[in-house]
């Protein structure tokens, strides 16, 4: 069995604050995608939401478990308009939110796309989270839009998209 490898497809490092980042024309040459984000809020609260192929409908059900440092909670939704990855709630350049998102079988056209996310941050904002999500579409993933529904990503935020070979 071949060793799965990370091959960089595209990346963005923000030179100034922005409310969205887009990776388009995603090659179909890999088995899975891994999106690695490290960001912090620009002024108050930034949430990174990921939409695939510009689909803004409520096609992204999820279940999440979260540790806050003092409690453990879980939630779910069947109607959310993006893949969720959590919040960075404070504008603090030393307390970043780190997210690793795996999009499995992203080029398949015969199945919905399962998505696994691990993320969180320690310091000013405390959370360790794991999300199991799904994009309810049989289309191959060709575009990824990473959006904040509130605030913006501060300058210095990094976004790396890798392909995982079969």
């Amino acid at each position, binding site marked *: 069995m071949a060793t799965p*490898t*990370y091959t960089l497809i595209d*990346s963005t490092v923000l030179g100034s604050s922005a409310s969205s980042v887009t990776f388009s024309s995603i090659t179909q040459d890999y088995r899975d995608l891994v999106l690695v984000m490290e960001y912090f809020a620009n002024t108050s609260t930034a949430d990174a939401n990921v939409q695939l192929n510009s689909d803004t409908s409520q096609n992204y059900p999820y279940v999440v*478990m979260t540790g806050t440092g003092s409690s453990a909670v879980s939630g779910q939704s069947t109607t959310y308009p993006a893949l969720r990855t959590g919040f960075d709630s404070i504008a603090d350049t030393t307390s970043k939110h780190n997210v690793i998102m795996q999009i499995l079988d992203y080029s398949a056209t015969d199945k919905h796309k399962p998505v696994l996310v691990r993320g969180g941050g320690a310091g000013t904002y405390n959370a*360790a989270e794991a999300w199991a999500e799904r994009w309810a579409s049989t289309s191959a993933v060709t575009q990824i839009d990473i959006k904040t529904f509130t605030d913006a990503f501060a300058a210095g935020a*990094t976004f790396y998209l890798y392909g995982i070979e079969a």
Partner: protein
Amino acid sequence: MQLIETIEVGSGGAASIEFTSIPQDGVDLVLVFSCRTDNATVHLSTYVTFNSDTSANYDWLFLRGSGTSADSVSVSGDTKGWVGYIPGSSSTANTFGNTAVYISNYTSSAAKSFSSDNANETNAASVRMAIDASKWSGTDAISSIQLFGSSDNFVQYSTASLYKITAD
């Protein structure tokens, strides 16, 4: 993802596993380890430090499941970063705890965020799994990583592998 080095603990055990002279040509690092301790416990915490920094520069929290309940713990200003549980001499023989640690932007001049997921399942009633989110406030590029348990030694056949993810 390219393997930098794998270290296997030899006979006699080792108090720590250390990766030094880490190449600076990657974007992220992934540390994967499968370890066991000779401490008389079933769940021993493991930690990392970077660049031998043992000052109070580490913040971490974990979400932990025991098979019957879940809870969360956070620590600020620690001298080390928590990365998972490993079994000890009171655990089922030949079982090891397994963890993957992801370290983002390890050569940056900003504080480093890292996260891990951990399983300490030993075919016994007392089990643990955890995810954690951590921060090291150091602003130097990470050039060495020290992995160790909260007490005693890693036993023989414990392994740790360090990978780099590049922008190639």
